[in-house]
């Protein structure tokens, strides 16, 4: 059981207030038969999402309380960022959600551009969309792989997902010089201009991605075990999802049509035609399906962007990327990252470093509803529900 020191263990049975207006499912009371069991899952545990702990109270096999415990990867990103210049924080953003570094770069660049009013050349916008959608594709692919891994299908789907991911990482590496920590976007554009050969190679890779979604669809969507394990499990009602600030594929799987690419129309997303898939059963299977469908929509966007990408500079020649001092003020910029709404809130006091630097982490806020989804579920399903949230601890704890 738990080998944590006593003072650190939290009693999940001490129920605290449950204000009205949250639309939470009712708490389950123990039925009085048998013994209650308290299990500390983590921070080291066999699932693939890193150092995260859940204090679970069980009545037999049923979960009656669940308290997540965070902070095992709290790396003080915000504190460090307040002591360094705006540009110096860019490589740190790579390490927030380390599966999708480029969307993190993008959100941060967008927030700084809002703060300083910089313009981004058209070619750079296209590049950002291409890289952002490639990132979304590989994130959803690995996320599906991890989800199936947590169902006990050790290896195969994750191997397939990583095969695709490696192809996309090769593109990133060729363009930015790094497989994972790309550090590619800058305020007012992108760091390097891709060659025509890179764009051709990307077109080839994108043409092959359809095959992967087909393969996943054929392999998994109708799979009896997957359907039995995920359908009707971990239901999240839309009212609760909105109230709890859930965003991204989780929110859309609950049937709420809210995609920041459509709502804010940031960058040049209004030029592309794509659909926003929505779920109607609000369960783990829907979250799997939404990710699969979003991968297909990403391919559509990629094809359009790769067809239309114009020539020109990738950096605004007037843009200052280092040593600038924004006017005092503040800005909140957000994008639709693969995991949800990723926002950066910056306050400038006129100095070279941000006065306040805040990351709005979608993974952390999506976990707010973990207990509600897990109440009454079996212990084995908790890992599955947790996997369907799709979190990365680097972003949860920062």
């Amino acid at each position, binding site marked *: 059981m738990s080998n944590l020191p006593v003072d650190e263990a939290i009693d999940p049975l001490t129920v605290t207030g449950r204000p009205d207006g949250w639309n939470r499912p009712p708490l389950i009371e123990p039925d009085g038969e048998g013994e209650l069991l308290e299990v500390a899952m983590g921070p080291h545990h066999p699932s693939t999402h890193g150092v995260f702990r859940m204090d679970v109270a069980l009545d037999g096999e049923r979960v009656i309380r669940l308290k997540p415990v965070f902070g095992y990867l709290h790396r*003080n990103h915000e504190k460090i960022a307040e002591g360094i210049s705006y540009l110096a924080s860019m490589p740190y953003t790579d390490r927030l959600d380390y599966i999708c570094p480029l969307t993190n770069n993008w959100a941060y660049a967008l927030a700084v551009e809002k703060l300083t009013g910089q313009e981004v050349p058209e070619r750079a916008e296209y590049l950002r969309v291409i890289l952002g959608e490639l990132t979304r594709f590989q994130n959803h692919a690995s996320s599906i792989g991890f989800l199936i891994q947590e169902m006990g299908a050790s290896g195969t789907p*994750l191997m397939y997902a990583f095969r695709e991911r490696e192809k996309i990482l090769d593109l990133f590496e060729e363009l930015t010089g790094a497989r994972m920590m790309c550090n590619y976007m800058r305020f007012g554009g992108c760091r390097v201009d891709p060659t025509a050969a890179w764009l051709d190679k990307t077109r080839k890779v994108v043409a092959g991605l359809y095959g992967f979604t087909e393969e996943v669809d054929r392999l998994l969507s109708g799979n009896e075990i997957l359907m039995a394990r995920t359908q009707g499990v971990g239901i999240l009602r839309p009212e609760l999802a909105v109230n709890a600030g859930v965003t991204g594929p989780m929110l859309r799987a609950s049937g709420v049509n809210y995609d920041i690419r459509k709502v804010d129309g940031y960058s040049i997303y209004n030029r592309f035609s794509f659909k926003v898939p929505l779920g109607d059963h609000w369960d783990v299977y829907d979250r799997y399906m939404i990710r699969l469908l979003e991968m297909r929509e990403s391919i559509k966007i990629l094809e359009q962007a790769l067809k239309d990408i114009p020539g020109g500079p990738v950096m605004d020649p007037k843009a200052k990327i280092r040593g600038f001092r924004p006017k005092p003020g503040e800005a909140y910029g957000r994008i639709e990252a693969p995991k949800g709404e990723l926002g950066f809130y910056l306050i400038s006091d006129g100095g070279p470093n941000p006065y306040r630097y805040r990351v709005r982490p979608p993974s952390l806020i999506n976990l707010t509803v973990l207990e509600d989804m897990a109440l009454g579920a079996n212990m084995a399903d908790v890992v599955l529900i947790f996997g369907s949230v799709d979190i990365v601890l680097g972003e949860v704890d920062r």
Partner: protein
Amino acid sequence: MAVDEGLKIELGKQGVLVTSLQELYNWGRRNSIWPMQFGLACCAIEMIATTMARYDLARFGAEVFRPSPRQADMMIISGTVTKKMAPQVVRLYNQMAEPKYVIAMGACAISGGPFKQGYNVLKGIDRYIPVDVHIPGCPPRPEALLDAFITLQKKIDGQHLTGEGRPRHLDAEAQGEFPVPVQGEHDLEPASNPGVWTVPVVIR
């Protein structure tokens, strides 16, 4: 008694295997290192990528990731160790059975890396547990992790079973368990384990 290498090869061709207990023991040890399924941060993703088809860690006899420390031989510290996590890391290490090895993967595990200035970041895991191989990088590429495996295998291969410098599990005096730091009001207590780590002297 050492056997001449040429003679050994010649006898091998005739179907006669000549070896020493030490060689046989080390051969067995080095080719079945089971790592613990234990990821901390960014580097864990590269660790997973290493086990996947393209890099295929299985070629080195180390693909069996065990979720339980009792069944694992090696711990890959794959990422930033925070002060909140450090006691758990030491405790997991203590729970592993001898012989056990540690690879510190990435800049954070070695020294805190880019997050060194963070108040909650441990400035190197070797302050609490002994580390066999350090791999620099942020994160190290899968090839670098493979290289660390090979380095560890070479290290195991070169060990003598008796005398000075013998493996820890064959030394009755050697320490196998290390004190777990306590989370205090401001910091971990103690800030490092003097039995494992002392401030290195920089010679320039």
